[in-house]
């Protein structure tokens, strides 16, 4: 991959985008750009970007127009929950922040990164040099949300963030940083969508969560990009002693997607649960990984994923539980169940247990299959038509994950998207 060759004028525009950044952030970006030049293409056993067509120039987008409708199909613009809306990396809406508890900060990451101590946290969970794409994103990210809950703060409600892409060719590089200090609690729901005209767009998204001792963070993320987009995302948390981080992940995109979520369980007694749902439609390619790394003693993780592939969609789901030496007493559970609805769809579940410690408990369940003939027969034997019976089985299959989505309005929106795509 490469950044499109740019003329001196464009180069000037690119520089201008990042001109107002703090010295610390400029240094971070410069370093990342260098890593990007040096690092080899990352290797994924089931995905490759080599044949994808896209180009991007990280310039500022035009003033967005007419974004309300797309956003309102997902969230209430003036609902009870805090809401930030970014359109092509510009903040266009910031509401519902009146009732934040004392000391809680919710602002754009760009603004927050004026402070060197915030910049110091960038890359502390997802290292800049992890791979070429992460380095690229770290160099050119334009915006996202920064959330900081101080010690003991309990955030009511759910902070909603919408990232809408409407212009192609820029590269969409949203980045979020969530910091929960000791014993604080917060819940975030992060939504990524793009208008259908956005083709051949490259999206790289990074979310870093830093959960301090005893804190509780719930992070939900839904992605729905149109076909021909290329999307790579990493949502990762670092969990300190007795903290808990829960993920709810929905991948509904129709393009080429590689995504990874999970926690580094670095503190004793830390825990992380995940629910994931994937729907592959059309010619979607999905290469998804849930990765739980147990570093500390008595750390716990439990992830369950459900995927439905239809049309010619191709889905791979890896459940990685890595228990490192020293993490005695750790408990790691993963389960993934994938359903293929059409003869041309493909689905693979790849369980991976990497265990370097003796005294641990690990479990794994994986299944890939079609709708069970017995279930269909059973439902139809009660007078339910075949089409309706299939619908019931598929929705039932997804229900446990949908039920875990924290905001009713968003759950309904996701159900609507699923309904539209499954017809």
């Amino acid at each position, binding site marked *: 991959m490469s950044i499109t060759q740019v003329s001196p004028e464009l180069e000037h525009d690119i520089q201008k985008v990042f001109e107002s950044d703090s010295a610390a952030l400029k240094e971070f970006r410069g370093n990342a750009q260098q890593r990007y030049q040096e690092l080899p293409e990352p290797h994924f056993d089931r995905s490759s970007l080599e044949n994808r067509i896209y180009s991007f120039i990280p310039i500022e987008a035009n003033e967005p127009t007419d974004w309300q409708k797309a956003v309102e199909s997902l969230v209430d613009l003036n609902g009870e929950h805090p809401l930030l809306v970014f359109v092509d990396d510009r903040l266009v809406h910031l509401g519902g922040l009146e009732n934040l508890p004392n000391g809680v900060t919710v602002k754009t990451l760009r603004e927050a990164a004026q402070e060197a101590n915030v910049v110091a946290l960038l890359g502390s969970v997802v290292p800049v040099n992890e791979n070429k794409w992460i380095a690229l994103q770290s160099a050119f990210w334009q915006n996202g949300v920064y959330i900081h809950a101080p010690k003991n703060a309990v955030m009511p409600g759910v902070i909603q963030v919408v990232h809408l892409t409407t212009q192609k060719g820029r590269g969409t590089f949203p980045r979020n940083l969530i910091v929960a200090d000791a014993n604080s609690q917060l819940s975030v729901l992060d939504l990524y969508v793009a208008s259908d005209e956005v083709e051949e767009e490259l999206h790289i998204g990074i979310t870093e969560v830093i959960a301090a001792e005893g804190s509780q963070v719930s992070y939900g993320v839904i992605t729905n990009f149109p076909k021909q987009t290329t999307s790579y995302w990493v949502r990762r948390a670092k969990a300190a002693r007795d903290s808990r981080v829960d993920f709810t992940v929905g991948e509904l995109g129709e393009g080429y997607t590689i995504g990874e979520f999970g926690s580094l369980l670095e503190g004793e007694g830390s825990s992380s649960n995940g629910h994931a749902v994937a729907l592959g439609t059309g010619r979607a390619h999905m290469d998804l990984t849930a990765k739980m790394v147990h570093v500390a003693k008595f750390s716990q993780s439990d992830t369950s994923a459900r995927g439905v592939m239809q049309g010619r969609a191709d889905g791979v789901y890896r459940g990685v539980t890595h228990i490192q030496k020293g993490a005695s007493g750790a408990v790691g559970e993963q389960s993934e169940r994938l359903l293929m609805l059409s003869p041309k769809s493909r689905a693979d579940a790849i369980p991976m247990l990497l265990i370097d410690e003796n005294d641990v408990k690990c479990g794994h369940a994986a299944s890939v299959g079609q709708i*069970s*003939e*017995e*279930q269909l*027969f*059973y*439902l*139809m*034997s*009660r*007078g*339910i*038509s*075949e089409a*309706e*019976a299939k619908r*019931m*089985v598929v*929705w*039932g*299959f*997804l*229900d*446990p994950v949908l039920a875990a989505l924290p905001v009713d309005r968003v759950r309904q929106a996701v159900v609507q998207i699923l309904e539209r795509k499954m017809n």
Partner: protein
Amino acid sequence: MANIPELAIHGLQASVEGKEILRGVNLTVRGGEVHAIMGPNGTGKSTLASSLMGHPKYQVTAGSAMLDGEDLLAMKVDERARKGLFLAMQYPSEVTGVSNANFLRIALNSRRGEGNEVPVLKFHKELQSKMKMLSMDPSFAERYLNEGFSGGEKKRNEILQMAVLQPRIAILDEIDSGLDIDALKIVAQGVNELRGPELGVLIITHYQRILDYVKPDYVHVMMQGRIVRSGGQELAEELEARGYDWIKEELGIVDETVSAGV
């Protein structure tokens, strides 16, 4: 056209995975009647039930089955159900994420047809009263369909479905297996409540026990994929007392299962 339900089976032959199982079954079940089919393991009893309901694994190769004068075998599974056929299965499926109540409401509305849906509140009231009749905890309405139900709870749930859907012909495949005596009485009582001229019942069982509570009008014995003997309640009692060997002897059958003579 009589309003009395009638299932008429003539010379029914069926196979599964190319293996011939049913070898000519003749049987007529009418409204108001209770028939029992008994027989050792592997003699084709469940195959008869599945073939009548239209399970895709079972191919009918000859014979006919008519429900109220209409060709049952030409219908899809769901159509058979909507015409009034019901099968309480030996091994009911579990369906995650679909609540029992929701499933039953959709099934009932499918049976009643578009424009004739049952009002939601009325449905829930009737469902609860039927669950009460079967001594089912109200929470079973909201649980996922059969998921995590014990063997006995699944059987009760089958009878609940029958009570809600009010079929014209009901086939109960081993509805008594795995039930303790109290549960058996409850299930039997549930069946008896529904007995009447509007319903014909075919009970498949190994044990005479349930027939003490649901008195059959006719008892049939199945061996080698055929009905080899028919009689009244006294036949069931005789089987209970003497086992099946005497019938085998009388008929000169050595191996009663369908694998014999293939």
